[in-house]
């Protein structure tokens, strides 16, 4: 009887995952969708524990609840305490944990399935994918939180990585066909998979990390699905495949927004761009600087201002100051809106989340296609910590590594003010010709600091 109920519970779980994901793709229902999927998950987990067939030692129950309790407390506190700007790396970290979980399942189950080559193949596939997802996510996490700054490229890394990938397949095939019981091979494969995950992510630049995380996310889904296949467990299978396919599509959608084919992300087309960086610095003429007091006056007399937020805003935690600035300008009758590039920040939608945190109106966040025609009627564009997404080279210079990427056409506005910490190139590693134009002024400094000055200058105008 127990067995029958667990299938109904798993069906319920699978339906909540599908509905939850569906609701997550609409702003109105998103939050409830997330809660629905979470509820389905709780039911599936409890059902698995309590409806298990056969005798189970109470010590094991104790350990399971201990692990769940510990994981809940740690996960909950980490997720609640993290700053909104640090969310992308946290998602990556959690993804890595899921991958590690799948890898560990494989390590344990290997011994229990030695007589079935099919099961061994499934176990190895889940373990390899889980391990790659784990080590890859940890590298992505380290890159996003800044502890691993530069893209490290071994000589001929593309060929090397491809060879390791082929090696992983060959090694797995060898273990399955030889029917070996030798643990050394299992751990050898495990180590190779971990190594591949590291080498796969480490050459990829920070700007492409969202795509990588999304891809690793779908990997972990796939690893979970292999687990489901092994146990004949429907909820793992549906949940895993659902995330695997939705994650892959999401990855492609993100690539499309950046106009970066997935192939280029993985095999690194920004390589040449970095060579230009060294020669491009400072050699394109002079830039005009503007101070907060002059800018305050200029803004005060504008009719329409568009703000283009970027990663610099997130790093400086300037989302609340910018809201204050918006409020002040509106009180003075200036029309203010935000132009959001789809990949501004460190993840698609990152800017929307940040600005939502400081209570910016949903209607004021304009997406690229809607806002581009508006720039020509705009008096002043304030670019805060964005660079590549406003680089006109993407439209005009076919040799540029970002050529073809859709950009915010800020150069059509009457005046452009760019806030940056320095003249360093953006993540794509290329110089921005926009900064040297006549209508462009630079406002150097940390976004939060200069915007705070700007706000007090505006207040002083009364």
């Amino acid at each position, binding site marked *: 009887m127990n067995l029958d109920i667990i299938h109904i519970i798993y069906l319920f779980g699978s339906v909540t995952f599908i509905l939850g994901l569906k609701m997550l793709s609409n702003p109105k229902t998103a939050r409830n969708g997330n809660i629905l999927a979470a509820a389905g998950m709780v039911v599936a987990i409890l059902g698995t524990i309590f409806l298990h067939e056969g005798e189970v030692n109470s010590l*094991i129950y104790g350990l399971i609840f201990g692990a769940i309790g510990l994981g809940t407390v740690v996960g909950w506190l980490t997720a609640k305490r993290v700053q909104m700007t640090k969310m992308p790396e946290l998602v990556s970290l959690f993804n890595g944990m899921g991958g590690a979980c799948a890898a560990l399942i494989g390590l344990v189950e290997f011994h229990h399935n030695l007589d079935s080559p099919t099961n061994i193949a499934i176990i190895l596939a889940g373990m390899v994918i889980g391990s790659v997802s784990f080590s890859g996510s940890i590298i992505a996490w380290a890159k996003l939180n800044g502890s691993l700054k530069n893209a490290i490229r071994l000589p001929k890394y593309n060929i090397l990585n491809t060879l390791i990938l082929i090696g992983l397949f060959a090694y797995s095939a060898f273990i399955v066909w030889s029917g070996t019981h030798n643990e050394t091979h299992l751990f050898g494969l495990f180590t190779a998979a971990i190594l591949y995950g590291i080498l796969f992510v480490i050459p990829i630049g920070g700007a492409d990390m969202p795509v990588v995380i999304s891809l690793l996310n779908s990997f972990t889904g796939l690893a979970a699905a292999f*687990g489901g296949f092994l146990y004949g467990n429907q909820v793992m299978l549906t949940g895993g495949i659902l995330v695997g396919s*939705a994650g892959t599509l999401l990855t492609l959608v993100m690539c499309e927004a950046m106009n970066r084919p997935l192939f280029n992300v993985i095999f690194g087309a920004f390589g040449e761009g970095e060579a230009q960086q060294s020669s491009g610095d400072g050699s394109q003429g002079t830039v005009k600087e503007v101070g907060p007091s002059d800018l305050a006056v200029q803004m005060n007399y504008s009719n329409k201002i568009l703000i283009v937020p970027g990663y610099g805003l997130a790093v400086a935690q300037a989302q609340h100051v910018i809201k204050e600035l918006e409020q002040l300008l509106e009180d003075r009758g200036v029309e203010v809106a935000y132009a959001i590039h789809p990949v501004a920040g460190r993840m698609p939608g990152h800017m929307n989340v940040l600005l939502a945190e400081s209570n910016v109106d949903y209607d004021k966040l304009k997406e690229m296609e809607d806002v581009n025609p508006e720039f020509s009627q705009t008096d002043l564009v304030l670019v805060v910590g964005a660079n590549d997404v406003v680089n006109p080279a993407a439209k005009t210079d076919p040799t540029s590594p970002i050529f073809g990427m859709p950009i915010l056409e800020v150069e059509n506005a009457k005046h452009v003010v760019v806030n940056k910490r320095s003249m360093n190139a953006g993540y794509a590693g290329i110089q921005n010709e926009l900064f040297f134009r006549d209508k462009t002024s630079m406002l150097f400094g940390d976004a939060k600091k200069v915007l705070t000055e700007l706000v007090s200058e505006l207040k002083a105008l009364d």
Partner: protein
Amino acid sequence: MNEIIEFFTQNKDMIFIVVLMVFVGVEVIGKVPAVLHTPLMSGANAIHGVVVVGAIIVMLNSEPTNYVAMVLGFIAVFLGTLNVVGGFVVTDRMLEMFKKKK
């Protein structure tokens, strides 16, 4: 060839689920606005935490004297729970903000 057909026949229900879920996954997030990409990725990240169910099964099927399975299983359940709980909570935090301003 026979082996492949045999594998398919033995696992036909599973294979049907896999193929159909691929289409469901694509269909379900087909029209998501860019604004929601980050929460959606985060939500999907929490859902693949369902792998924790597998870790629980590992522990339930093991003998308490199998220390390797106990230790690895414990770590796996812990990490899987971290993925599930952290994933859903952080997604909820992101979405909470979207709701507040409406």
